[in-house]
């Protein structure tokens, strides 16, 4: 393992801002794995730390294939992590809205640009990502439809679901999108949590990444074979919204199978406690995402359900 500094900025009163990378094996730039990019992405940071620990062991046993290099970047934004701020310390910009970056631009454009320069030539790019809405997910692989996406490859993680996502305007400045533009096969790995660390889903994610490394001929690894992934596009997913604002009392969690008409959650009045809305499932299916905050605004997407297709 070699630790390298991929990008650095000198600060006025703080220690240097550093983006560090951990490199395993040598040769072709095979796989790059990026972790936390926002200051609240603890789970993503944790996943990378576990992956680095595992890759160190595998490297010591000579299990990384000759002529292949793996790079892990556990954190792109230590400054925000250390002050517990989600976005960039001074101007609140999001590094994951700055790709491909610009080396003569604003600070976060330079960070994105410096990182991208170091990671854009890898064959495969994986990012432990978080969703813009707070909530819990069934672990899944997300692939952006750019024309360069590779769904068959996404199945190699052995996750239960592969979610195909059509980019919206703001997605065009994310790492995942730009990796694909530069012809890196890119995948986002979603686990259940973001701010809290969940060891079980982190372990599952690390296993999935190791599985992927094995199936792409990068390492020898004797691990869990994984699931036969189901591919679902975001357009197929059923979004369930609450009609009233209030306390959110979820009755079902991410990953659960639900039947049409089943009560998923109640909304209760914040002052008087009476139930103001009963949220029922409009379909048979599996819950991919659930809202996970105590209160909820009107018409929030509190559940995303993968509908059951007729088997044949």
């Amino acid at each position, binding site marked *: 393992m070699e630790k390298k500094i991929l990008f650095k900025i000198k600060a006025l009163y703080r220690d240097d801002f550093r983006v560090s990378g951990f490199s395993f094996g040598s040769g072709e730039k095979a796989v790059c794995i990026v972790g936390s990019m926002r200051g609240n992405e603890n789970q993503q940071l944790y996943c990378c730390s576990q992956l680095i620990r595992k890759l160190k062991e595998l490297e010591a046993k000579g299990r990384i294939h000759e002529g292949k290099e793996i790079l892990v970047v556990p954190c792109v934004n230590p400054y925000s992590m250390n002050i517990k701020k989600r976005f960039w310390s001074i101007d*609140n910009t999001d590094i994951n809205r700055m790709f491909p970056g610009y080396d003569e631009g*604003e600070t976060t454009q330079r960070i994105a640009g410096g990182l991208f320069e170091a990671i854009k030539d890898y064959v495969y790019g994986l990012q432990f990502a978080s969703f813009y809405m707070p909530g819990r997910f069934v672990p899944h692989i997300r692939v952006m439809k750019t024309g360069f996406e590779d769904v068959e490859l996404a199945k190699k993680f052995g996750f239960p679901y592969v979610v195909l996502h059509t980019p919206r*305007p703001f997605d065009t400045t994310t790492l995942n999108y730009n990796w694909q533009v530069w012809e890196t096969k890119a995948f986002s790995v979603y686990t259940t949590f973001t701010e809290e660390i969940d060891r079980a889903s982190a372990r599952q994610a690390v296993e999935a990444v190791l599985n992927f490394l094995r199936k792409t001929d990068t390492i020898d690894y004797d691990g869990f074979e994984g699931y036969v992934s189901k591919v679902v596009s975001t357009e197929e997913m059923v979004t369930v919204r609450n009609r009233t604002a209030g306390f959110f009392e979820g009755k079902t969690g991410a990953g659960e199978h639900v039947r049409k008409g089943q009560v998923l959650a109640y909304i209760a009045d914040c002052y008087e406690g009476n139930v103001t809305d009963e949220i029922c499932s409009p379909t048979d299916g599996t819950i991919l995402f659930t809202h996970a905050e105590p209160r909820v605004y009107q018409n929030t997407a509190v559940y995303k359900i993968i509908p059951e297709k007729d088997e044949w």
Partner: protein
Amino acid sequence: MIETVVKVDLPVDEMLQIRKMRLQPENGGNGRRISIVTGIHGDELEGQYVCYKLSDYIRKNMKYLAGTVDVYPALNPFGIDSITRGIPAFDLDMNRIFPGNTEGDMNEYLAAQIVRDAAGSDLVFDIHASNIFLTEVPQIRINELHADSLVPYAREANVDFIWIHGASTVLESTFAHSLNAAGTPTLVVEMGVGMRITQAYGDQLFAGIVHLMKRLGIWKGEDFDVRTPIVSADNEDVGFLNASTSGIFLKNVEHGAVLKKGDLIGRIVNPLTGTVADEITSPADGWLFTIREYPVVSEGSLLGRILYGKENSV
């Protein structure tokens, strides 16, 4: 008359309302309409003064009003109330969610209702105030996709500068882009600085708005003379000055300064060591239409923008 554009119930004993002032002659007017919109970014307050001044002026001179004037002073009331640029609780830039979605979440719903309400105006002003970091001369920014329809209005708006910039996918989710794409001409004004009000700029833009109301047949009263703006349609002639290092920026000139090549714009100093880390000089003759206001800079922070060319002086 104050009207509610959209309202939603909040979880704890509060109703979120986005409101506007509709000014109209008693007979309903001639059907022509101008909309003045501001406060998408909660830390940009220059538009507050313009809304107040315009509304006050028209209400005192109602007999000259021939059409409709809609004044929307606060599209992001939570942001204005909490000194937050984006939408608090969502960490979301409101100017990245348009045109919204009536079936979507609260913010998408608000955005969609705002667009529905403002659409169909003969002209819309969307007034911004840069941000807390930069001070700007009064200017109108136009996406090149909409230049043909917007530049004729912008020339009459009494601003100093019209900047026609390249199209970008990210900007497709702005309020102005959504309305322009739907055929409602919308001018984006940037002037002054965040968290402050520069009354002289507000007065200047006010005169431009009244002038355009006159041109649109909405106003029968007094007209104001407007200045001739500099128009830049070539992205090559705008230069960006970014900090070469982190430190405290001390400006040596004000925005609007006419510069000769080599003129000192400012210094980046280090108070810990008591030294100058960098001196920023003008790379060529030009006009400094943006300057850094907020002193703390890190490597890459924008310090100023220059329109090159010595003929470019107001």
